[in-house]
Every structure is written in C-alpha cells, then in structure tokens.
C-alpha cells in the first residue's frame, strides 16, 4: 500500500532559502503533515514546521501545497498521484521565521486594532440574553480557526506589503460582521469602522479568501458583501443605494 513520494520542501530563513528535493515513504490514509513529520524524523531533524492538533482545529499548520494555501493536516496524500512531486512552501504573505514557519504577527496586530465587543451599559454579566436565531446568524463566523489562509491569499496584501498598514483582511472582516450582527454589541459603527479604518473598500470581492477557508466560511458572500452594501446604505441616499442594488442583481 505504501509508496515513496517525491517531496519538494522550501528550506531557509528570513535571509533566503531554496526548494530541496526529498523522497519520503507514504502510507495509506496519510496527510501531507504526516509525510512532513516523517521527513523530519528520518532525514531533516531541524526542519521547522508549526502544528498542534492534526485535526484541522488549531489553524497552526497552514502552508502552501503545490501553490495552494492549505492546512497540511487536512490535505490527504491520495489527492495527488504517486508520480506527482508535492511541493510544500511557507505562507507567502508573512515573513519567514524558518522553513515552513512564518511570523503571523500581522494578524494579531490587526486583531488588536479591532474594537472589542462593547457590553451594553444597562446589563450586568449574567443578564445577557440572545435569541437563538441571533446566535445562529453569526455562528458561521465563529467557526474561524485563525489559520490565516484567507489573509495569505488575499491579493490586496499578497506581494503588497505596502498595503498592510491600511488593510486588516478577510479574517478581520468576518469578525467585524459578527459583531455588527451581535444584538448586544453597543458599538454602532462596525461597518463604518471597517470601511474607514480596516480597508474594507480595498476589497474587490474576488472571493479568493472564501475559496481557501478550511472551515467553509462564506467570507465574501455573508460578511464582506452585506457590510459593503450596508455601508453604502448609510453613506448615500437610499434611492441611489436601491438603484445600485438592483443594478448589481441584474448584472449578477
């Protein structure tokens, strides 16, 4: 059942590096992370790779497999042919620490800039009540495992470091949308903040983020587009807004 797979792995650090070729045994049912671990255990003990749960739940093992942003632990080896060379490289949008490990601080800095949930003044902890339907509405966004594959993919910042200061990225947009939908959040201006301070306007809804999300969150359709529409709704005359909406529908 097992076979020898051709693996090409990027090795290096913040000063540079290169792709190295390896041949590694693969067994039935294994994922890319298993094979990377076998490579580490048998041929490259100092190969740096970040991982934790091996179950698609912690978001640590993000990398690019054959150029596609993926969780290594959720990428099955049998999705490749036995002859195919599987190339594993670190996330391109963030600075490399070593080998497959990148410094994802950018995302935490953006998270810090995000105004936190604002408790309603009239309620004490323990008195919060939410209707089930409101809980469910934002539940999708709470599935985020912070793998940052969406942030890595988004062309606004991929290969465009100069955009990073002004752009928080899709992961933060779903957080903004979640709080915007939260019936108890006292902050009224989530959309406006996203538009003015988080760079929502730089997003041109290409949906690349949605495509790579391992949790299947409809980042663009359910978070970004509704927020964009409602920002427009608030900013401009309702009739113009209605017109733009009808136009968009017709064109879609």
């Amino acid at each position: 059942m097992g076979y020898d797979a051709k693996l090409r792995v990027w090795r290096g650090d913040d000063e540079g590096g290169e792709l190295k070729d390896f041949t590694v045994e693969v067994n039935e049912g294994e994922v890319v992370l298993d094979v990377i671990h076998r490579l580490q255990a048998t041929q490259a003990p100092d190969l740096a790779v970040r991982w934790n749960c091996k179950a698609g739940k912690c978001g640590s093992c993000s990398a690019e497999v054959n150029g596609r942003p993926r969780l290594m632990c959720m990428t099955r080896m049998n999705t490749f042919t036995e002859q195919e060379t599987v190339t594993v490289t670190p996330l391109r949008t963030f600075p490399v620490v070593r080998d497959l490990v990148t410094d994802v601080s950018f995302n935490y800095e953006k998270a810090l800039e995000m105004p936190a949930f604002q408790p309603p003044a009239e309620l004490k902890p323990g008195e919060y009540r939410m209707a089930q339907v409101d809980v469910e509405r934002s539940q999708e966004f709470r599935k985020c495992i912070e793998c940052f594959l969406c942030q890595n993919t988004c062309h606004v910042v991929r290969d465009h470091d100069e955009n990073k200061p002004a752009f928080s990225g899709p992961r933060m947009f779903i957080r903004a949308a979640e709080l915007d939908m939260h019936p108890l959040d006292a902050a009224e201006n989530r959309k406006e903040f996203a538009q003015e301070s988080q760079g929502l306007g730089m997003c041109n809804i290409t949906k690349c983020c949605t495509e790579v999300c391992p949790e299947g969150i409809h980042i663009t359709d359910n978070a970004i587009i509704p927020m964009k529409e409602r920002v427009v709704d608030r900013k401009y005359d309702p009739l113009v807004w209605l017109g733009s909406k009808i136009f968009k529908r017709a064109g879609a």
Partner: protein
Amino acid sequence: MARAINSEIKAGRGSPHGGIFLDIASRRTPEYIRKRLPSMYHQFKELADVDITAEPMEIGPTCHYVMGGVEVDPDSAAARGSIEGLFAAGEVSGGMHGSNRLGGNSLSDLLVFGRRRAGVGAAEYATKIGERPKVAQSDVDEAVTEALAPFTRDSGENPFALQAELQQNMNDLVGLIRTADELEQAIKRLQELAARVHNAAATGGRAYNPSWHLALDLRNMLLVSECAAKAALMRQESRGGHTRDDFPKMDPVWRKVNLICKLDESGVQVVKQDIPEIPTRLLDLFEIDELHKYMTDEELTRHRDGGSLSDTTAASEGGAVNGVRRETARLARRRRGW
C-alpha cells in the same frame, strides 16, 4: 467504553485497522448528525472519505487527558515540594479530577483555578516577596551548558526515533489495561531508554529547531512516563482511567491514598500519602447507598445514616440500588464525552 472496545479487539472482533465500528447512521438522522457532531462529520469526510450519516466509522481508544500532575496546595495552587514560587493550574496540576475527569470539566478547572488560584496566588506571592530573587550566575551557566549539550553529541541518537520508542513502550505496556508483569517490563525499558535519552543529539542551528526542542523535552517525557508506570504498578486496584487486569476491582482502601512521586539520585520514588478526610457535611450530601462502592465501612460510620460498623455492612450487602443512585449514574453517563 474504552475497556469494552479493548476486550472486543482482543477477542478478535476488531475492525480492519485494529479498532471497532461505531455506527450513528442507523440511530440518528443525517440532519441531527451534521448539526450535533459537525467536527466529527467534517473530519471523517475530509480525512477518511467516510460519511458518518450513512455508514459506520472506525474508532479506537486513545490517550485523552492526564489525571496526574504537579502536586499543588488546593487553596493557593502553589506547588508542594522544594521549589518556592511555582504555581500550577490546569492539566499540568494533579488531583483535581480524581481518577477520571468528566467531560467538560477541564474547561471549568482552567477558568476557576487558572484565575482564582494560580493567577491570583502567584500575583499575591510576587507582591509579598518584595525583593526580586537573584539567580546565581553559576546556575545560569549550568543551565546553558545543559541546554546546548544536544548540539555537542556528534554520535548521539535521533530524538525522533527515541520519542517513537518511548511512545510505543508506554502504549504497549502502560496503556489502557495494565498488569504487574508488563508494568515491570515497562520500567526496565524506561531505564534503558534513559541512558539513550541523555545522549540525544540535535543537528542544525538554534532557531526554531524541533530536533533540539525534542532532545530537551525527552528528559521530561521520560520522567513523566516513569512516574506513571511506577505509580500504576503500586496501585493494586482498578479505578477510573487506571485498569489493572490483575486487580480488576475498585478498592475503597486505595481511595484513601494518593501516590506521590519524588525524584532522587536513583530515579523516581513513589510514596503513599493519605488524602484528607471528606468533611462530614459533604459526606451527608449523598445517600449512604451511593457511597458503599467508594468508601470503607469505617469511613461511613461518620455518615448521617452510618450508625455502627455492622449496620453499614448489612446495608451494603443488601445491595439496595435506590432511585437516587440510578439517577446519578444516568447523569454521569450523559455528561461523559469529551
């Protein structure tokens, strides 16, 4: 459940990959399964191409939680022993969950003891000591030398191979079902591994180097393994997560002791330590029939219905299973899970 799975496999009724089949598809609707077990559904689908709403899944027991850990003072979470200023909370601390943690109780443990005990306790300690303790330079030098030692062992062993061996040893001999024979074998093998672990080598540089980290961590893994094996050998009963094939019954006398592991030159020493008596007011919260399984007759004389020694014996022999006890068992079953 884990024990039942194990005995099925042993009896030759296991699944092709050495587990058993769990079938929820025949018991719940696909909508229910997808809604209530979203992660399980997703993982089986993505990783094994198995649709658990339509077919059975292959499962097997695995290590989930460590009940033992650093012995702490229950009120301050300060570690007992010779290291002052060390606080522990969460899975690394021992004793909180007895012999078997119930599902969901780790989260509450972390929240309560993380803040109230270890967090606040450590903060109070730090404010009280006034002057910051000074670290002796010689201690720092020694620690640095020790930390860097794996880089100097040119002919040392591969730490990943050592870890795999250690893991296999613990899985085979200190696993779900234990016997004195196997535990003794395990301890012997651990001693052999110890010498090799002290010769674990790291290659490469000091930045994010897993072989180096593992070479250092192995020493601790070995120590924890030795504690688990030696304590399991000493505890001649079965209780919670600890099953001794050669002592299959739970023994109320053993409930009264904790096993404390200490390190000296010759390795890990295990000593028995009495656990504090349960206050009578807590004992009285239970019906006496619920307690016979867990407590000695002598202890039960302190119970509100305890009476004299002979009375309680009679009650336990009567084997009365009352409604309360059934209810407790039912609740316990419901709460199990992760």
